């Protein structure tokens, strides 16, 4: 069975609100972060690096709830500060409570879950995070697609003749299906080239994390429907093409229901095909490149090796990249869920900072392994005129393997 990284605090189930007392267990939990004061969480936060606003750090969120518990504030006052989190996971990973003692005490810092909870509770009491309207429109678009898009959901695969069942299934979310269609198309072509028999769902259901932050029940219901559809299609292995979905299948859904099949990220799967000799890289790909670790693979699911292995296996790439630990405090600026729509200017600054780091190593291209990173860097490059061009790793695999 594939790895599932379950870390769940049931104390988050009790809702926060202007007229609700903070439960003592949550108060004590927040005190554990407040009492630290090393603030390593602050120094690795890509948003803090740009904005220097401590209230958006893990320390800031926990201290704010502690303040509420002490009667020094109410939830609705967090409408602005609740915007300040990418949910990249750097702070909770670097927190000494997690990194040095989490396994020993059985208690870790779970800032992503906390920020989701804060945003969800703010929405529930009618005082949503500032600028939430843009996120709500985005969610409505996906929900509308679920109801009305019909065959358009699978248009990305229309000439690929993929079956809708099989022991191996390629799961393609709405973002890939509608916005970065080259990613699932390339994934499908590579799998076909390697002789892998696989199918894809005729109708996947929405997985967008923005919905997780606003309507957890509906988000989980869609998640369950995806899992049931994949199971009904005969899936024993599900290959994921969007690392945000990979986090949901590996970290989030298993908190609430069982995942009855193996879940693998596309780069891990392709690397295993390469190791088995089912795909060869015969063409040189001449370019000077660096690599950006998606937060979801590097900081949340320990899946940072396969992309680097694939890049190293392709001849011709002059490659210089910061190691994955250095990249704990990097992010493309998109964030896991709502950040880009909540704070577009800061999102741009975080992205531009990452492109400038790629310029420092004199790279021509920034290799990415996530469709959201690709989308974000493309936008930032266009706006800024940066010389660094983002390229998805599957494009390079296609070129190296000679796939059209």
């Amino acid at each position, binding site marked *: 069975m594939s790895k599932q*990284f379950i870390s*769940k605090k*049931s*104390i988050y189930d009790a809702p926060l609100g202007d007229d609700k007392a903070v439960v003592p267990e949550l108060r004590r939990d927040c005190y554990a972060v407040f009492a630290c004061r090393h603030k390593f969480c602050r120094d690795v936060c890509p948003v803090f690096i740009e904005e220097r606003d401590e209230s958006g750090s893990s320390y800031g969120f926990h201290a704010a709830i502690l303040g509420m518990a002490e009667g020094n504030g109410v939830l609705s006052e967090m409408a602005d500060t609740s915007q300040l989190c990418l949910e990249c996971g750097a702070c909770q990973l670097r927190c000494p409570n997690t*990194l040095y003692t989490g396994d020993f*005490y*059985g*208690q870790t810092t*779970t800032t992503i879950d906390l920020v989701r909870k804060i945003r969800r509770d703010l929405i529930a009491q009618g005082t949503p995070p500032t600028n939430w309207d843009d996120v709500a429109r985005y969610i409505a678009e996906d929900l509308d697609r679920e109801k009305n898009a019909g065959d358009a959901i699978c248009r990305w695969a229309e000439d690929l003749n993929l079956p809708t069942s099989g022991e191996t299934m390629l799961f393609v979310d709405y973002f890939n299906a509608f916005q970065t269609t080259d990613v699932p198309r390339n994934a499908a072509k590579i799998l076909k080239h390697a002789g892998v028999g696989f199918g894809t769902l005729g109708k996947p259901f929405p997985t967008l994390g923005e919905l997780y932050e606003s309507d957890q029940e509906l988000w989980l219901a869609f998640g369950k429907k995806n899992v049931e559809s994949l199971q009904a299609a005969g899936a024993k292995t599900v290959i994921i093409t969007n690392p945000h979905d990979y986090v949901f299948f590996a970290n989030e859904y298993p908190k609430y229901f069982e995942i009855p099949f193996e879940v693998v990220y596309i780069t891990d799967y392709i690397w295993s095909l390469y190791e088995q000799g089912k795909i060869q890289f015969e063409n040189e790909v001449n370019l000077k490149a660096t690599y950006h670790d998606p937060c979801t693979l590097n900081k949340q699911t*320990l899946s940072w090796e396969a992309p680097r292995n694939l890049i190293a296996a392709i001849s011709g790439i002059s490659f210089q990249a910061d190691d994955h630990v250095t990249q704990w405090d990097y992010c493309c600026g998109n964030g896991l869920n709502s950040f880009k729509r909540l704070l577009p200017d800061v999102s741009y600054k975080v992205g531009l900072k990452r492109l400038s780091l790629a310029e420092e190593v004199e790279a021509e291209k920034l290799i990415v392994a996530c469709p959201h990173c690709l989308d974000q860097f493309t936008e930032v490059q266009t706006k800024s005129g940066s010389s660094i061009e983002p390229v998805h790793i599957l494009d390079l695999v296609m070129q190296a393997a000679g796939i059209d």
Partner: protein
Amino acid sequence: MAESISSKYGHYHVEEQRMEKILTQEINEHETERIVRNRGEYLDWMNSHFAYKTVLAPEKYK
């Protein structure tokens, strides 16, 4: 001082009943392994980036 050594998923672990002030949470084996591996990687990273030598414990403590 603990009277006995407790381990979970192959790593030293404080028994849950001793965690009176801060509650423990649901953490599975893979998440535990992730933390342990991240810790090792981070300490290696710290050594390779900031340490110019490794100080070993005196012989009598080995």
